[in-house]
């Protein structure tokens, strides 16, 4: 598959390396001469100098026959415009943009970018999972339904330990669907399930009810 990558920074470089390893035909477009030279030294002549938003650069890069176009510069507006030029001028079937400001995710979708990947959100979520005091972890967002799947861990000092789920006042738009105890097998909770310290609970909720769900399950 012929893939064009705009931006030869850290993300662009490692992405290019991974895609080359998978056997794809690849071209990186990068403005800076220094980065350009670095990539050509490391990966062979797979990098051209130029502005990935400019029609003339993209014409030279053979964008018309690219099957995928990935813009990963550090500037959201540049990634947006590069993808729009690829899509509308060169009819590239699939465009992927990196976004740095998580707020832009919805905007990019609205403006016709096929996939918008928020590097900031991904890094934040990964770090949050590793912070032990953080009691609620986002596992998956179901965006078009406004739902999210989250994981909560019940600490030993939670007021809910030893109580049945029916005693909790869960928010109406939240459902618990799996309890993973510290020992033993995961099970689907019912109203009479007793919560133990160390239980991991997987639940579906909405961004608005997240806080209420956390309070209901930890009792504080």
């Amino acid at each position: 598959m012929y893939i064009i990558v705009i931006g030869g920074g850290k993300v662009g470089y490692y992405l290019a390396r991974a895609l080359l390893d998978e056997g794809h035909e690849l071209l990186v477009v990068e403005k800076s001469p220094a980065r350009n030279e670095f990539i050509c030294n490391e990966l062979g002549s797979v990098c051209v100098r130029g502005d990935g938003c400019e029609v003339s650069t993209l014409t030279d890069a053979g964008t018309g026959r690219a099957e995928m176009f990935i813009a990963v510069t550090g500037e959201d507006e540049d990634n947006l415009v590069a993808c729009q030029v690829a899509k509308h001028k060169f009819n590239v079937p699939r465009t992927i943009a990196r976004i740095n400001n998580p707020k832009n995710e919805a905007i990019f979708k609205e403006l016709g970018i096929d996939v918008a990947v928020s590097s900031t959100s991904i890094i934040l979520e990964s770090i949050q999972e590793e912070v032990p005091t953080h009691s609620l972890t986002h596992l998956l967002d179901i965006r078009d339904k406004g739902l999210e799947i989250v994981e909560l861990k019940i600490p030993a000092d939670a007021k809910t330990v030893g109580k049945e789920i029916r005693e909790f006042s869960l928010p109406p738009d939240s459902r618990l669907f799996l309890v993973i105890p510290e020992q033993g097998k995961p099970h689907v909770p019912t109203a009479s399930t007793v919560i133990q310290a160390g239980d991991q609970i997987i639940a579906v909720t909405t961004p608005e009810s997240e806080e209420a769900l956390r309070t209901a399950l930890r009792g504080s």
Partner: protein
Amino acid sequence: MKIVIMGCGRVGARLAGLLDIEGHDVNIIDTDAYSFRRLPTEFGGNALVGDGMDENSLRKAGIEDADAFIALTQGDNRNVMSAQIAGHIFKVPRVLCRIYDPLRRELFNSLGIEAFSPTTIFAQMLKEKLETEPEEAK
């Protein structure tokens, strides 16, 4: 008319002044407060520090009930992005945008953005000037 202008450079500030004198409700935003020095001293509109690519800043500038939005920063891509946010997300009825790169202007014009390239316009004007007799020096 309620007008939101993004970018308080020479053109943005001048346009804001002209529209203000005619009695329009003008809101101008720029990421740098220092750029507001270019506004005429008698400017009666609002000048706000903010990023025109950020929905919240645009809301503060009154984009939701604006009749027109004009993107005039130095960055073509910033102008294109904020013009699209104004048009597609906030449904502003009239959106104008400056794009220096003539090819990019052509493309985004065909995508429904009313864009102007100072490069093309000014080059054309200079060419026409050269082809006619110079005006009488006063």
